[in-house]
């Protein structure tokens, strides 16, 4: 026979136990970061309310989120305008061709102002290009430096001197070099794109070079001896022993490089007026309307989120490629 006066406390206990278990499970990964974010937003709003600038009140989270949806809807409006433009052009051309099949039809691209969302993609595209150039140079260079102490000793001073150079110092040189050397009537890439990408490459080369060098140089002597006993050719030594052994360190370098590259890109775009998020920020700053600061803040947050996403992406790749599945990666 059931006894309600006993049964109730038991279910109650179970309930509290369950909820405390749930809390324990989700508190560290979810609730704590959420609390941190909420606390930050509150402080931000509080501080923002008390700052007056020449462009009006400093934007708090509320104004920033308004600006964000404004930027998104502006992008959607612009897309719609472009669509209508192409539709009109197509019907006009079709009509022309219907009248005279040999008529010369003109297809013009839509020339609207690039929207915030388009600037994001320009930036992503540019940083990826710069990062790819840097990786293609840095990994082989790092492997060579790690394998040969002679080459390392010869190159190391150069690495150490060029590593701390700011992207802004490179930029004028790169700009002049690109305009001097990349002369073409029908350019495959825009000059501004090349300038930004090369500047990014120059700055995000170093972490990968250094980490690859360390990774390759610290391969266990025993594994090198295995390779010697097997009489592996230099090429298969690199492919079979060196590369897999150094993969964890190479990825550590690549992650740092991509992070550096993303920071450098924004600065480069800003200074060089090259299309991208950096230019967006600079334009808004020059624009100086009441909503400018809010829009810049949107850009700041988006830049941060994208940087975070890029890093997670690299981490995912690292997990995929690394043989040591037990290694703690963070």
């Amino acid at each position, binding site marked *: 026979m059931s006894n309600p006066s006993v049964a109730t406390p038991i279910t109650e206990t179970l309930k509290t136990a369950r909820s405390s278990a749930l809390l324990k499970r989700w508190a560290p990964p979810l609730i704590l970061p959420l609390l941190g974010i909420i606390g930050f937003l509150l402080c931000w709003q509080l501080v923002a309310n008390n700052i007056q600038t020449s462009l009006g009140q400093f934007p708090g989270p509320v104004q920033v989120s308004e600006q964000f949806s404004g930027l998104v809807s502006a992008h959607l409006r612009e897309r719609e305008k472009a669509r209508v433009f192409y539709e009109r052009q197509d019907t006009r051309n079709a009509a022309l061709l219907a009248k005279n099949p040999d008529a010369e039809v003109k297809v013009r691209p839509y020339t609207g102002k690039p929207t915030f969302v388009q600037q994001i993609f320009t930036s992503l595209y540019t940083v990826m290009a710069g990062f790819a150039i840097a990786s293609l140079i840095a990994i082989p260079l790092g492997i060579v430096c790690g394998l040969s102490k002679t080459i390392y000793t010869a190159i190391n001073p150069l690495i150490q001197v060029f590593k701390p150079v700011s992207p802004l110092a490179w930029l004028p040189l790169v700009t002049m070099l690109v305009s001097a050397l990349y002369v073409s009537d029908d350019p495959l890439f825009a000059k501004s794109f090349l300038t930004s990408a090369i500047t990014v490459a120059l700055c995000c080369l170093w972490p990968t070079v250094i980490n690859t060098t360390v990774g390759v140089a610290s391969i266990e002597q025993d594994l090198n001896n*295995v390779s010697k006993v097997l009489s592996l050719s230099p090429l298969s030594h690199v492919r079979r022993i060196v590369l897999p052994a150094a993969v964890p360190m190479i990825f550590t370098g690549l992650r740092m490089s991509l992070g550096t590259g993303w920071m450098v890109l924004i600065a480069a775009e800003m200074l060089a007026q090259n299309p991208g998020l950096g230019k967006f920020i600079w334009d808004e700053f020059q624009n100086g309307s009441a909503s400018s600061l809010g829009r810049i803040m949107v850009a700041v947050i988006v830049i941060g989120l994208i940087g975070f996403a890029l890093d997670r992406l690299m981490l995912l790749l690292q997990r995929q490629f690394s043989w040591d599945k037990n290694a703690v990666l963070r």
Partner: protein
Amino acid sequence: MSHSHLELTGVGIDFPTDKGLYRALQNVNLRIDKGEFVSLIGHSGCGKSTVLNIVAGLYQATTGGVILDGREVDEPGPERAVVFQNHSLLPWLSCYQNVELAVRQVFRNSKSRGEMRDWIEHNLELVHMMHAKDKRPSEISGGMKQRIGIARALAMQPKVLLMDEPFGALDALTRAHLQDSLMEIHAELGNTVIMITHDVDEAVLLSDRIVMMSNGPAASVGEILHIQLQRPRERIALAHDARYHEYRAAVLEFLYQKQQRPAA
């Protein structure tokens, strides 16, 4: 002139140190016949590993030299396969792939793909590791790793198998299993083996000859003991064999009386 299988003549080696050259080995002479199992025993630091590395070609002797089947040894090569003390398997490859790397390198021109696969599996079977062929080294025990290391070395079909304290890092029971396996394999294949060991019982049980090395600097061959025990050898039967104990005593006497370490 006699033709030994493997011949070390007047081998000496100097290592550069801060205080000038350090003479680690001096005048090491050794002749090893085909199929012979030779152990090198001595206190740590006496240059056993150095001798092995010179035979492997990983070190170059300063004086003297090594001749294998009438050819001088001057670089490492798969005909002198090494079983390393800490197995040295490539951690990113499975057991099968670790052996495969060696087999591909040695037999790429002489075996077809299918023959290579059969040969790899044959060698894994020799060391009783077929069941774990797709596991990574990190997923198997120390003894199993060493078995794979032996399979990799055997798969190169070496003229000489060089083993650098192959069972040093294993527990006593695992070590006994692996010693039995090694005796089985040696009986079946008749490889020439040079093994470094610290373990007196291991040396007596496995070897045809025990080469006892004097202490460094300028270490050399002290005494050589012929082990004339009938093969196949059975560790339990040998425990009651008077000759086994005599051999054991002879090695111990050399190590702890004649070559007592000044500051051990």
